[in-house]
């Protein structure tokens, strides 16, 4: 696969677009179809594509497994942390109304933050699983 010129050039062109699209799906999920789950999967697909074309070692240098492990737990932490933050501000667990001065703005902030948490966890877990399977084959 290392010498497949066409694949490598096309991959270079496509990967930034896939990542950009993932970010669009992530942050436009409030208005169109999309959200953290889809964005996370699409984001990890970009990296899997990179790993398939340029080799697992190169991809692991870009996104080491240790970082992925931390990111996977960070996403859940952001999500649960939002819940704790709303409790500290006097609301119920995950009641975003208290996050800003008016309820609608609070809901917007809350939904954006927890979708980010979902996206981070989903993308890093998917990548982690792929790297583990691929790494097993190399041993």
């Amino acid at each position, binding site marked *: 696969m290392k010498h497949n010129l066409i694949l490598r050039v096309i991959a270079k062109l496509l990967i930034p677009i896939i990542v950009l699209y993932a970010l669009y*799906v992530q942050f436009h*999920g*409030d*208005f*169109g*179809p*999309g*959200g953290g*789950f*889809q964005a996370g*999967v*699409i984001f*990890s*697909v970009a990296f*899997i594509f990179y790993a398939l074309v340029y080799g697992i070692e190169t991809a692991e240098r870009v996104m080491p497994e240790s970082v992925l*492990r931390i990111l*996977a*737990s960070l*996403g*859940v932490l952001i*999500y*649960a942390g939002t*819940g704790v933050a709303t409790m500290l501000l006097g609301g119920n*667990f*995950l009641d*975003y109304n208290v996050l800003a001065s008016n*309820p*609608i703005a609070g*809901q*917007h902030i*809350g*939904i954006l933050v*927890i*979708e980010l*948490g*979902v996206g981070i*966890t*989903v993308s*890093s*877990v*998917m990548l*982690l*699983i*792929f790297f*583990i*399977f*691929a*790494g*097993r*084959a190399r*041993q």
Partner: protein
Amino acid sequence: MIDNLLNITLLAFLAITAFAIIRIRNLFAVIMLFGIYSLLSAGLFVVLDAADVAFTEAAVGAGISTVLMLATLALTKNHEEKPPAHRPWLPMIVVLVTGAALVYGTVDIPSFSDSEAPAHKHVAPRYIEEGFKETGVPNLVTAVLASYRGFDTLGEVTVIFTAGIGVLLLLGRRRGRKRGDEDNNET
């Protein structure tokens, strides 16, 4: 009308693909057919007005699942399923009886796309009428997912995280590689 036609055709294709998956013994072909199956169901979700779900199914089912299954196939180096030793009559009878019971159960279900069905009368009208006013998010699926049922979604994210840890524990690289080598020599 065109919706119904697409619905019927795609469902028929799904059934055909499922039977092909049962019949075919070459595992590589089975996995590819499973990718097709996922893509067909994603198309069906679009026809059934579930854009978000279709999006997810296309990315997950046809993308990641297939890649993971191919990775497993590469690791197990087993490309052909063994033919069954005897005709599986017992599973066939169990499946037919269960299927007949389930079909009997559908007789009482409100017919497809009936707007008077009990499923649409409980909390859904509230989500549709108040969702946009209360959360300011036009995509009701996101509103319900992140706001009304936020606690539910937290559970789902935790399940994904746990599954990741499970895979890491089962297949993750061993730290003490020397000891692992000795183990291999013993066996």
